[in-house]
């Protein structure tokens, strides 16, 4: 599969959005429980963005607002979009599972959401994408065409 130019600032904004939303839901729900709804909403945003990039809320925020106003500078890198999309989709799936647990077992639901935020933070801060590594492992095992 061919390399293409990917703006890594868009990915960073996406990761920041994930971390911020989970943290607001996590801390905010301690004081105002309905804020937990942010977690299923984030799951929807991530899954929509995986299959239709024009619907990726945080990336669109970057392309439509942050980049044109010079708030975040672009960082184009020759890369493949598939591992990043896979990682985002995986995050979305985990948040769906988290959402299913939020009402019957809030501890489990919140813990899974926190793990998604931790992984997004690791990617944001250290550039280590766990989802991309899983994508590589699946490709190596021949389960996907990596």
């Amino acid at each position, binding site marked *: 599969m061919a390399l293409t130019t990917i703006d890594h600032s868009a990915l960073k904004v996406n990761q920041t959005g994930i971390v911020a939303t989970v943290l607001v839901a996590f801390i905010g729900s301690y004081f105002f429980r309905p804020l937990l709804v942010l977690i299923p909403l984030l799951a929807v945003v991530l899954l929509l963005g995986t299959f239709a990039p024009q619907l990726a809320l945080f990336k669109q925020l970057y392309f439509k607002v942050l980049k044109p106003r010079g708030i975040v500078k672009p960082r184009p890198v020759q890369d493949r979009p*598939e591992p990043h999309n896979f990682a985002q989709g995986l995050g979305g799936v985990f948040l769906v599972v988290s959402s299913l647990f939020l009402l019957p077992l809030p501890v489990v639901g919140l*813990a899974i959401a926190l793990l998604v935020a*931790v992984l997004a933070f690791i990617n944001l801060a250290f550039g280590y994408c766990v989802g991309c*590594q899983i994508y*590589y492992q699946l490709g190596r095992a021949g389960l996907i065409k990596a």
Partner: protein
Amino acid sequence: MSSQLWALAAAGSVVLAAAGLELWRSAAARRHALEAKSGPAVEPYIIYFTGEGCTVCRTHQEPALARLHDVRIDKVDALADRGLADRFHVYTLPTTVVMSSEGRALHVNYGYAPANKLERQLAEARRESDMKETATA
């Protein structure tokens, strides 16, 4: 204790367990990889395992390798050359292997290895190579 605190404890435990598992896994892979051999060369060299889908390779590892001087770097696509990747137990990308001039793996770095770390490992490999040459002479 509230749900939030229990969730924090649970997520923290999972992160710690994952970190521990990763340490154990990389130590086990490194132990096996250090027994692997490749072709001999005049000087110590580096085998650099990468792949098209590896972003860290392009954004971090390649600039670090570019900072190294006078060293042969064999770039290997880990998915295309699975035989070699399996020989060095490559389970993550990037992976860099510092080889002695006799073709023995001296240092295996799973994940991003900064330039200063590679320089240090190469210096060690060169010292070892020089000592062997002196002993032979």
